[in-house]
């Protein structure tokens, strides 16, 4: 029996994290920025001259890591999947700094024996020197082996999807075979993304790419095709990880703008399978047409 419902309302991880400009640059490189090293708009995210910061950096800062591997929880962490991510960016982050973060479990929703359980976590990020609230990151994790443990707490409202379907293909981007190896240096060292044996245990042919990394690639396409690489206008992003995506595959992004909102979804060019759905980017100001 796992103690998942008892975790609701508790802080499972708190730490102080300092990050440097090279960390911010590595993060952007791990999301494919710099693939065209002569595109100076993308270079701004991977070169220290007037370094720009991606709005999704809070996803990897103070990453709580494997809290689920803590002794006493005895969870089957090989069979966990990242299901959803919701980011609210309260303030832009500097390219280097010190942040304090705390991760809480907000809710546990049991789908029943054999069906798994959704664990909803919330990470709050504050600036260390002035205490300003920087970001809130809500993650939904599907623990596939722990169904039947019971529910507790209140999950966030369901993700919205554009009524109908986002059909407008705006662009695509290739990933590297070693993409997950680079991305994991940003902090998510789950072996399912590097070890063929762990991937097999989790039911996959080979290591899959981190969901947050796929999201970063989709963000790159949105910035390139729709936002002129002006990342500062983004105040929030949410998405559902609908299916695995493998390093080396090509991501095709569909999107539609509606006022201060971009609806998006993405699939693999190779398998035509939707891997990101319910995508929504919130913009700070009404976007020009």
């Amino acid at each position, binding site marked *: 029996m796992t103690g998942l419902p008892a975790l609701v309302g508790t802080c499972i991880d708190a730490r102080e994290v300092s990050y440097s400009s090279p960390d911010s640059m590595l993060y952007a*490189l791990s999301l494919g920025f710099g693939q065209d*090293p002569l595109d100076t708009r993308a270079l701004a995210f*991977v070169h*220290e001259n007037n370094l720009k910061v991606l709005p999704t950096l809070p996803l990897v800062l103070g990453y709580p890591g494997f809290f689920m591997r803590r002794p006493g929880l005895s969870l089957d962490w090989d069979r966990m999947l990242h299901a959803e991510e919701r980011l609210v960016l309260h303030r832009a982050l500097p390219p280097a700094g010190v942040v304090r973060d705390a991760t809480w479990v907000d809710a546990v929703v049991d789908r029943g024996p054999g069906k798994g359980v959704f664990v909803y976590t919330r990470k709050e990020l504050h600036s260390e020197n002035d205490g300003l609230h920087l970001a809130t990151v809500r993650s939904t994790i599907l623990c596939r082996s722990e169904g039947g443990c019971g529910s507790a707490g209140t999950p966030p409202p369901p993700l919205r999807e554009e009524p109908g379907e986002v059909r407008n293909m705006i662009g695509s981007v290739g990933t590297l075979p070693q993409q997950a190896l680079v991305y994991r240096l940003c902090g998510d060292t789950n072996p399912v993304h590097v*070890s063929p044996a762990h991937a097999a245990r989790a039911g996959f042919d080979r290591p899959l790419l981190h969901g947050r990394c796929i999201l970063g690639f989709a963000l790159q396409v949105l910035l390139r095709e729709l936002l002129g690489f002006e990342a500062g206008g983004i105040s929030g992003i949410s998405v559902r990880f609908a299916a695995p995506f493998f390093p080396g595959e090509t991501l095709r992004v569909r999107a539609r703008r509606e006022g201060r909102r971009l609806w998006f979804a993405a699939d693999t060019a190779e398998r035509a399978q939707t891997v990101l759905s319910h995508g929504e980017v919130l913009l700070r100001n009404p976007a020009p047409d």
Partner: protein
Amino acid sequence: MRDPLALVGRTVDERESRFSHEDTCLYALATGLGADPLDPRQLRYVWEENLRALPAMSLVLAYPGFWLKEPKFGVDWARVLHVEEGFEIHAPLPTAGTVHGRTVVTRIIDRGAAKGALLYSSREVRHGADNRLLATVDSCTLLRGDGGFGGPQGPLSPPVSMPTREPDAVCDLPTLPQQALLYRLCGDFNPLHADPEIARQAGFDRPILHGRCTLAVAQHALLRVCCDYEATRLKSMRARFTAPFYPGETLRTSVWLDGEHVFFSAQALKRGVTVLDQGTARLVVTTG
């Protein structure tokens, strides 16, 4: 250059630096390991489980940076060219910890006002915990604007006699367009490798790959061809940089084997230009 001869024998940089498993993985990824993420032999260098360090990582450990740019040396630093680099491993490199580096100028050769001066430097890399010698790194830099000071005109290192027969093995390794952007995070932030405008000012179409990174790609070729990816078998390596190599190009390394001695050269495959020449390496030969 200010009083070049007084530089000989002088310690120009001394530093201690800490590095982590992540840095060791990043170095391997930035030099092309892990390009086949299902090859367990490559995974050993890019994943912290049973992690090993590549010998060429000695090139970036306790790296002194662009010390020639410091005003106190009075070098015409905008006109320097990195012409030769090599390392010798004395003990297997750790995958994390503290290392101590000391860079000493060993020789300066005056090739005249038109050709410039050759500056040889050597860096000892020692383990921070017990001070044991891990590696010696030798660099040669051509200071194009600093020749003709009446210094010694020799001795020049004799050229390596490369085998004249066909190479025993050839290995093609593609590099990434963003290879230099990734590699510079290992510590060499010279903007020549990232900023298109600065590369143009230096006379290149676009940013070039770091010579040390090109050498590390050739190391990957040697590991594949001669060592079955067993890095501890590679004891030393050195080569001359003969032309720029651009990120995204494929490096074709030609290898000649002669017992524990290896000769190599490498070219940019599509352009057919030799970018590394007079390459030598030493292996531990396994028996049986």
